[in-house]
């Protein structure tokens, strides 16, 4: 038997190319004959464009064209699409591809310059003079909420949307609860910050009237649809290809970016290829950010810490526009549930405009804020009652017998927020064993005796993954026996080609080396949604599994016919169809592919076997009714419910008594994403997610000043973790609770590592320091100042209960580690 590859840590098929410089990222695609675009971007956060003078710029040698809003026509001149409308989004606003009259954030494109060379395009862009009337900017959530200044004159109070969801009567439950707390949490902005920025290359073939666009995107079909609409072209005349993409993390699911409209538009207009590659400063000031929220939590609970009622009010900063709708705050407001089942819940979010870069999903997409709100609240409940922090969480867990667990809330896809599976008590038991939670008091005491401050934190999350509507997979067996697979969503380093090849290899019994997977190319798969919400493995993985299953059935049928035996007696092993128990009766899969396509004309030795004079009954239809030629199939996998992965993290930190630096001593992860297709890849996803979670908790912030200028728009000043800032080791234990919502039983894994970061590190730092931490991320200097304020009596002390002090949780009685 061929070894089953599903579940094996198979080395990635992508890598030999990528490690040897043979990757093909956007700026590597053949751009012969291309001219290059550069943009004049607004230096002001809020201003009226009074005039644009291009006289000096147009004389720069090598300039091909300079374009402003007035040059745009038709749909290209209309506002950019509102991608995800929502009934509660009362005042949606989207920008224009090039600013029309007003600019609403620093970095908004105002003028496009096209020249023979990017250097020259930038020379000319520098010489464009834009006359601005500077208007008062709105920066920060508090200022937006005050509503004294407006981002959009016709949006009262800067409020894009107010949205409420609830189950039960939370206010009444809180009023009747034995204990209540009022809590305030503050979480700041960060951003996806992939190592490769965005970029677009467009080629217009005037003869064929065909547009080919390469974009560094997480959705080639989405970009294709948007370009076709904006340029007034039939969708069938536009191909969009996502080549190798150098990281996405959410920012590249937003589309169409102004440049994704403008570059193809000008390529058609000029009749020659046009390229734009985003530079790092452009990425900081004109791509998306995420995270910023102010959270107010009112919670009522019983003596065991069980939440009886929970009311949450979120102020969400959506930046200057709302092209991605309300997805981020909707996710926060639902995923606050985490693994818990409060008695009653009411959440209201207010989505506010500010004169800053737009806010669209960044890895986690509202979930880090959700975990922050509920996990910090769990810590406070434990501290209030003098209970162990894990015990309070356990008291609130959804239990195994509760699944499927429907909260009565509406999820980001408009469908019920209903968990499929999980085993939260088992996950917590694993985590406590992994980090040795119950012995930590001793570790802390010993450290304190040495004058050191250490603390432990814990945070849980549930991650809705594998969201619909659908994805497809196309599987073709060539006459050579090689298998070509296409999925429609694009890939940014998650190893989609490898996991899809693993799934197909198992189904078709062909070696991995004979399978090639194409992603994100509308020429190969025209129907797709995109890569976001940790959905690729769930959606595309199952789709290619179904397509390969169909191909397998067809192969067995055709081979059964040719070998004159029952398809049920056949098996597919190592590229050969053979009779079970009698391998001498066999046929290469490539030969089956030949037979699947009855021919009149032979084009090589193999195809001679399929021509008309080579056999078959004279009265049979060459292609049976309902059948199709070729050994290939497309299948689509659609879902009516997301699948919900979960995880629990623990961290041990040490804070420097003098410098207030935070050092991570241990980082432990228990992760349940259902069945693992490739554990090596899943662990890689966790590693990267944890690094981004740590970055978001300790280092990364978007430092806007009161004028809406981003002060740290470079890698010198925006502190992304280097190797020296991540934990030395990330200790991982898996639980595999299969999803009940797809044939492969898998759940998404892409975002998990990032989600609990801020909640977790706040919990641990608070434990080390003994006073309340309510604002994240936290820098050493901020922690230093908090210490001073705590010493001055301005910040309350908090104390976490030692687990061993609680009789019910003695080490001898705890649940032991599971396998």
């Amino acid at each position, binding site marked *: 038997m061929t070894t089953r590859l599903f579940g094996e840590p198979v*080395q990635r098929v992508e890598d030999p190319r990528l490690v040897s410089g043979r990757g093909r990222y956007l700026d590597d695609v053949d751009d012969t004959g291309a001219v290059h675009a550069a943009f004049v971007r607004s230096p002001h956060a809020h201003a009226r464009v009074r005039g644009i003078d291009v006289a000096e710029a147009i004389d720069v040698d090598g300039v091909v064209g300079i374009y402003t809003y007035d040059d745009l026509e038709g749909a290209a001149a209309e506002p950019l699409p509102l991608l995800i409308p929502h009934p509660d989004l009362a005042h949606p606003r989207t920008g224009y591809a090039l600013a029309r009259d007003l600019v609403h954030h620093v970095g908004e494109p105002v003028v496009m310059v096209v020249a023979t060379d990017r250097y020259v395009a930038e020379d000319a862009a520098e010489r464009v003079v834009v006359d601005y009337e500077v208007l008062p900017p709105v920066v920060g959530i508090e200022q937006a909420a005050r509503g004294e200044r407006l981002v959009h004159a016709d949006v009262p109070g800067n409020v894009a949307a107010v949205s409420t969801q609830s189950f039960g009567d939370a206010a009444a439950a809180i009023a009747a609860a034995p204990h209540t707390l009022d809590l305030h949490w503050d979480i700041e902005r960060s951003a996806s910050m992939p190592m490769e920025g965005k970029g677009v290359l467009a080629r217009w073939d005037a003869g064929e009237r065909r547009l080919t666009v390469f974009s560094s995107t997480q959705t080639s079909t989405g970009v294709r649809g948007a370009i076709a609409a904006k340029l007034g072209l039939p969708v069938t005349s536009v191909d969009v290809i996502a080549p190798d993409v150098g990281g996405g993390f959410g920012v590249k699911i937003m589309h169409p970016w102004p440049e994704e409209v403008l570059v193809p538009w000008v390529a058609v207009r000029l009749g020659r290829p046009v390229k734009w590659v985003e530079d790092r400063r452009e990425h900081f000031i004109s791509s998306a950010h995420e995270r910023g929220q102010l959270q107010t939590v009112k919670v009522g609970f019983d003596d065991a810490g069980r939440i009886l009622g929970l009311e949450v009010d979120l102020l969400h900063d959506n930046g200057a526009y709302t092209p991605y709708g309300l997805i981020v705050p909707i996710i926060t407001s639902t995923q606050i549930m985490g693994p818990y089942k409060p008695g009653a819940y009411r959440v209201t979010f207010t989505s506010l405009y500010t004169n800053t870069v737009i806010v669209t999903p960044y890895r986690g997409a509202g979930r880090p804020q959700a975990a922050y709100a509920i996990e910090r609240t769990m810590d406070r409940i434990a501290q209030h009652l003098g209970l162990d922090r894990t015990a309070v969480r356990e008291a609130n867990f959804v239990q195994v017998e509760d699944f499927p667990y429907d909260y009565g809330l509406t999820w980001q896809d408009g469908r019920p927020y209903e968990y499929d599976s999980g085993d939260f008590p088992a996950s917590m038991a694993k985590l406590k064993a992994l980090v040795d939670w119950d012995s930590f008091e001793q570790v802390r005491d010993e450290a304190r005796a040495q004058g050191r401050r250490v603390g432990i934190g814990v945070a849980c999350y549930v991650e809705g993954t594998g969201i619909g509507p659908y994805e497809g997979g196309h599987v073709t067996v060539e006459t050579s026996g090689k298998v070509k697979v296409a999925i429609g969503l694009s890939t940014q380093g998650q190893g989609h080609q490898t996991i899809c090849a693993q799934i197909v290899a198992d189904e078709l019994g062909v070696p991995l080396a004979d399978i090639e997977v194409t992603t994100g190319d509308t020429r190969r798969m025209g129907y797709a949604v995109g890569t976001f919400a940790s959905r690729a493995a769930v959606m595309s993985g199952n789709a290619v599994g179904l397509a390969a299953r169909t191909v397998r059935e067809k192969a067995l049928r055709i081979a059964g016919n040719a070998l004159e035996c029952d398809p049920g007696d056949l098996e597919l092993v190592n590229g050969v169809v053979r009779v079970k128990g009698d391998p001498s009766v066999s046929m290469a899969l490539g030969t089956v592919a030949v037979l699947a396509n009855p021919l009149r004309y032979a084009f090589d030795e193999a195809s001679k076997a399929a021509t008309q004079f080579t056999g078959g009954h004279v009265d049979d239809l060459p292609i049976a009714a309902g059948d199709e030629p070729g050994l290939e199939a497309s299948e689509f996998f659609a879902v009516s419910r997301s699948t919900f992965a979960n995880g629990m993290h623990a961290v041990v930190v040490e804070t420097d008594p003098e410098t207030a630096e935070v050092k991570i001593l241990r980082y432990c992860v228990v992760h349940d994403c259902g069945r693992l297709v490739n554990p090596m890849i899943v662990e890689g996803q966790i590693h990267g997610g944890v690094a981004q979670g740590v970055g978001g908790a300790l280092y990364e912030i978007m430092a806007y000043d009161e004028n809406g200028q981003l002060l740290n728009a470079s890698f010198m000043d925006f502190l992304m973790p280097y*190797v020296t800032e991540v934990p030395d080791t990330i200790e991982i234990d898996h639980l595999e609770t299969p999803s009940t919502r797809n044939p492969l039983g898998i759940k998404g894994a892409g975002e998990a590592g990032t989600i609990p970061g801020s909640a977790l590190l706040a919990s641990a730092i608070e434990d080390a320091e003994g006073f309340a931490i309510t604002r994240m991320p936290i820098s050493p200097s901020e922690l230093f100042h908090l210490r001073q304020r705590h010493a001055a009596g301005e910040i309350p002390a908090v104390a976490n209960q030692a687990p061993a002090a609680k009789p019910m949780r003695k080490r001898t009685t705890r649940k032991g580690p599971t396998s």
Partner: protein
Amino acid sequence: MTAEELHDVSLVVNGVLRTAQVPARRLLSDVLRHDLGLTGTHVGCEHGVCGACTVLLDGRPVRSCLMLGVSADGHEVTTVEGLTRPDGSLGPVQQAFVECHGLQCGFCTPGFVTTATAFLRENAQPTRDEAVQAISGNLCRCTGYQNIVRSVLRAAEIVRDQGVQP
């Protein structure tokens, strides 16, 4: 503003003499990528922080986005493409990154591979701490560095076991 003056540059890239005519301000990274067609060298920040564009100049790692192409005239440059073995198979550092899942999107990888190569040529038996130090000037947004550190240590093993040059 008129056309820029061009300068002749000749440099040995991956063992082959290459020439180009370039403006004085053209970055070495752009010369390699766009004039010489070696797109394996990637540009992540254009201000010398991320290290994706690292190449070896006369054997020493440099940021090709912080150097002008004309400054490389007469020098030897090794890019990630030049680190495969003579038969085209993966070099030891490249092989280690594949074995250890030391990359995800792969965009920063050429800079790590060149940096690690230069490091291992100086220190063939590094400790973990030394390996961490060696790559501590390169940014990766995907991997959390765990497997990159493993890759560097694994590369040292391959170099040792096979008696090859990194």
